């Protein structure tokens, strides 16, 4: 499925939209990390929590539970809430 990548993570992907696979959100992030090593740890910490100010949307809805099941036609967007100076 297509995954929307925010600009701070495009140094890993080289593109704003990339292809990845996974039957859950967790598996999708693992697949992204296989394709783009190091990327997962920048947005999910070692305890499996999405980092502060990082959000993952599935079909337009914010999802925090990485066990969320994904279907092939789902649209996944990783978004960073830029703030501060």
């Amino acid at each position, binding site marked *: 499925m297509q995954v929307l990548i925010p600009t*701070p*993570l495009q140094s890993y992907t080289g593109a704003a939209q990339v292809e990845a696979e996974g039957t859950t959100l967790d598996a999708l992030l693992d697949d992204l990390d296989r394709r783009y*090593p*190091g990327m997962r*740890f*920048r*947005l*999910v*910490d*070692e*305890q*499996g*929590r999405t*980092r*502060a*100010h*990082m959000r993952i949307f599935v079909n337009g809805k914010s999802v925090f539970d990485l066990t969320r099941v994904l279907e092939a036609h789902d649209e996944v967007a990783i978004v*960073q*809430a*830029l*703030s*501060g100076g």
Partner: protein
Amino acid sequence: MQGETTILVATRKGAWIFRGDPAREHWRADGPHFLGHIIHHMVLDPRDGRTLLAAASTGHLGPTIFRSTDLGASWSEAARPPAFARADDGAGRAVGQVFWLTPAHANEPHAWYAGTSPQGLFRSDDDGDTWRPFSCINDDPDYRRWMGTVQDGTPDGPKLHSIIVDPRDPKHLYFAMSGGGVHESTDGGETFSPLLEGLDVVEGFVRSDPTFHDPHCVRMCPTNPDRLYQQNHCGIYRLDRPASRWQRIGRAMPAEVGDVGFPMVVHPRDADTAWVFPMDGRDVWPRTSPDGRPAVYATQDAGASWQRLDQGMPREQAWWTVKRQAMCADAHDPVGLYFGTTSGELWASVDEGAHWRCIARHLPEIYAVEAAHTAWVRRCRY
């Protein structure tokens, strides 16, 4: 040693590498590297003169470590940056920033140590590519209590810092925590124990409890590894091993200046000489140069007396802050000293602090300044 000197400057918005000519007169800025990243520390491996590690994060992305083997011409990212062990209940800690980097012993050419916030100790055995946690610190109930939580630490998070390796013995280690005290290991980090005797704490708190100790910077003298100097939240100290009682040498500082500050710098060849950059620790702790008159203070008698060194610095209305990693010495004769301010100025002295000049301004907030000798960059233009 009169080779080229390189100053590694880590800032809140990226990193810069300043390359000096042999006279340390002219400096060429190389940067920014990682513009927009928070770089907490950047260190060149003195064992190979090639490997450069930079501890990085951003305001939003998780922490990582970047590695270079060509002094910053190209970088790669660590395959497994420092991370705490995963807790089954999901309540475990997560590294927010890698704060401190120290190359391991000369006989362990690929090993490094890292200190983090929240406070944790980590080691790499492959030039910083992958890192493993020290569970004896990171998961020990006593250490977890002593290091406290975000609520107990410095405003942007408690720091594990000042990781020191005894050049005579790779298994002899020290580190410090703000807060949580100074700790020593003689078995390569399998066990640590506090080293607090003689250190003051804020009035009303218990000296014997590591929780209340706030070392700001601890340094070992290269030519006398039995001697440690420490800049603490509560004074300047010296410890001569095997004794275990710190001596408050800051009491010899002028009373109107006090003995509070962040950095501690030791002479590369003279264990009786050290430098500090005092800050205002009165009432609400401005942590700026006392009375807006910045100065370095030097001792040449192991802390029995101190001399003010401010030639070339502003005489008034200069409210500088110099953080614990933001002051260093090179290995030349005479020694060069360098410090960076939170207002983005880089200052240098080529005569052991007698005279100072600003060699760069308008940088972002400076977090760390490290001097490195890199004879192999002679081909560089200045």
